[in-house]
């Protein structure tokens, strides 16, 4: 069979990092199956027996949220938590100078399933089957009219979201950007439980929001690549190629790894680059993973550079966040 471009990549990969002026994390909002905030996260994965950690639905006052889905409520609550953490008044988000980038692998599945299975679904349910309903509710709640992109996928999509946000801040099209991720799988757990190739740790539902503003100093570096097939050798070459592209001769102080199945390859690729601290994400949080990892690394007191890694399907991505202090 002749396909378009096929031939598996042979190492070393010609993988190159994108660079952009690094933003500052001004606030963190986090709700996960572990609980609210960073403090709720366990230090280690060992001892966790649950295969799925479900996040409770936040109770938001107001008639406006009467029809909103659980994932919409989680998104709004995560944004509010980030604003509270950053000491920013909600009213400051209104208008064209606030951007929002949203990433998710799953936070539409419940609404889609409900509409597919119930032919008698209410008229007003259908709009919430669109993934854009989740960030859409956020933009309505806070009257946001700035730059806006939604990316569908796991951790690597969240890295792309962070890079996109940094680009908007660097070029001045926004004064602040919300990077928002939501993952909800409880309602489709009977289906997703069959797809173990997508994850190898307990699935953690959650919503995470980073409030970014310009100017931490330093340069953000981001790269990603996919394996052409599921071979271990291919994965190791991709991990090494991506990490070489992102790190060059830099030595990370913290590794916020969330990469499924890449642990050994990551360790091998990082060997000889010092002994970085780790801020691992305890579980498969999909698009929320990189944000949790960054938040955890920031809270550790290290000033960076922080290496954040993520994997989803055949994709592997890495980002070097230069520093946390402004």
């Amino acid at each position, binding site marked *: 069979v002749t396909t378009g471009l096929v031939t598996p990549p042979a190492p070393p990969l010609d993988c*190159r990092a994108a660079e952009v002026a690094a933003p500052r994390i001004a606030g963190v909002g986090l709700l996960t199956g572990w609980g609210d905030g960073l403090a709720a996260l366990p230090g280690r994965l060992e001892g966790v027996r649950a295969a799925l950690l479900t996040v409770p639905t936040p109770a938001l006052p107001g008639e406006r949220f009467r029809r909103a889905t659980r994932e919409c409520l989680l998104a709004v609550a995560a944004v509010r938590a980030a604003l509270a953490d950053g000491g920013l008044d909600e009213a400051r988000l209104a208008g*064209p100078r606030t951007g929002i980038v949203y990433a998710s692998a799953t936070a539409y599945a419940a609404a889609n399933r409900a509409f597919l299975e119930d032919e008698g679904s209410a008229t007003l349910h259908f709009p919430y089957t669109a993934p*854009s309903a989740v960030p859409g509710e956020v933009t309505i709640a806070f009257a*946001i009219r700035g730059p*806006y*992109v*939604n990316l569908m996928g796991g951790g690597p999509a969240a890295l792309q979201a962070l890079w996109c946000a940094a680009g908007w801040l660097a070029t001045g099209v926004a004064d602040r950007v919300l990077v928002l991720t939501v993952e909800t799988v409880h309602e489709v757990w009977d289906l997703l439980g069959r797809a173990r190739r997508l994850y190898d740790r307990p699935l953690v539902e959650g919503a995470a929001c980073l409030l970014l503003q310009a100017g931490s100093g330093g340069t953000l570096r981001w790269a990603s690549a996919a394996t052409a097939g599921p071979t271990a050798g291919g994965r190791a070459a991709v991990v090494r190629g991506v990490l070489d592209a992102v790190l060059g001769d830099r030595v990370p102080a913290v590794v916020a790894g969330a990469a499924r199945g890449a642990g050994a390859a990551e360790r091998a690729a990082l060997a000889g680059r010092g002994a970085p601290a780790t801020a691992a994400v305890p579980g498969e949080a999909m698009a929320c993973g990189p944000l949790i990892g960054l938040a955890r690394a920031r809270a550790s007191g290290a000033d960076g550079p922080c290496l954040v890694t993520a994997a989803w399907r055949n994709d592997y991505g890495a980002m070097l966040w230069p520093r946390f202090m402004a």
Partner: protein
Amino acid sequence: MSRAAEPIAVTGAGVVTPIGQDLDAFWAGLVTGVSGITEIERFPVADLRVTRGGEVKKLGRLPWSGDERRLPACRTSRFLIHATREALAGAGLLAGRPDPVRVAVVVGTALGGIDDAGRTLRGQGGLRALCGALYDGPTWNLARWLGATGPVLTVSTACASGGTALGVAADLQRAGRADVAVAGGADVLCRFVQRGFNVLRSLTRDAVRPFDRRRSGILLGEGAGVVVLERAAAAGGRGQRPLGLLLGHASTADGAHITAPDPEGRGLELAIRAALAESGLGPEAVDFVSAHGTGTPANDRVETDVLKRVLGCRAYAVPVNSIKAHLGHTMGAAATLEAIMCLLAGRHGQVPPTLNYGDPDPECDLDWVPNEARRYGPRVSLSTSLGFGGCNAALVLASP
């Protein structure tokens, strides 16, 4: 005027639409006023209020593949692969294969792998269908078919997805993340979405009549549009004459309503102005507009008002069209198909008409190129898109 971003060359394009499954058929259908709206045959619709749409009746066989069993079962993925093959051929890249890790795949979709989701819930298709049912399923199927191992991204800004995807792909190239980007949009017409818009009462029992006083709603369509994007210097180095250039892009939020556009169109206006700023051009440079033009009362009035504000006194002199009456609303594919239409208009020196127009609306009083194609070669085109969740996208394109 702001500093322009690097223009990105569109070196190839491919389409699957209800009026044609290659560029030539698509273009011929557009300029001759062919409508792809028919009775829907592929899934049950007898219980629905509206039973018509822009359906691709039979997807042509892929002439380059002797083994169709190797293709994904997912209809969206097949549309994408079909369109991508044509785009690669047009770009001269079927034979000369770029390094796979330098190839990016960016797909915009409003529905993702919804076809596979239905099969999964019926217990059919196994794990492959389950993975395909996720929103990024069709994108990964395309990446696998291509053998591409560079950035693989799925954009879902509802019916603006196909525009946002092109912008994201251009940004990847400007950042040096890829030498070649295969970018576009795709969605299929299925019971899920037909029933959804049916219960919302957004579908018309009449014809789709963009900007006409009698307009009463949309009809859905399906298809795929794919372009090959390259940095202009690289395309020139291969001796490839580009179809056109992507000069600028912006996507913005409305922050107003989950399904309806902001009545004042502030988000759309910002998207257009930001896309023009990225292209380094002012509104006076725009000489053609491909409007979203769904044929709903709200959308068409808002778009008209925004175009008047942006184009100023020139608004009445700039031809504006909508091809939704030809194809139906192809959702995630729409913005890419409309961008391709803009570039073909520049190449052929002809602008396709807005069909079914006959009763002017005083609130929508621009030059809609009614019913018949016009001899006119736009050099700089603006393409606008809107979607659920308050998504807006604007593209600025140039024909060589």
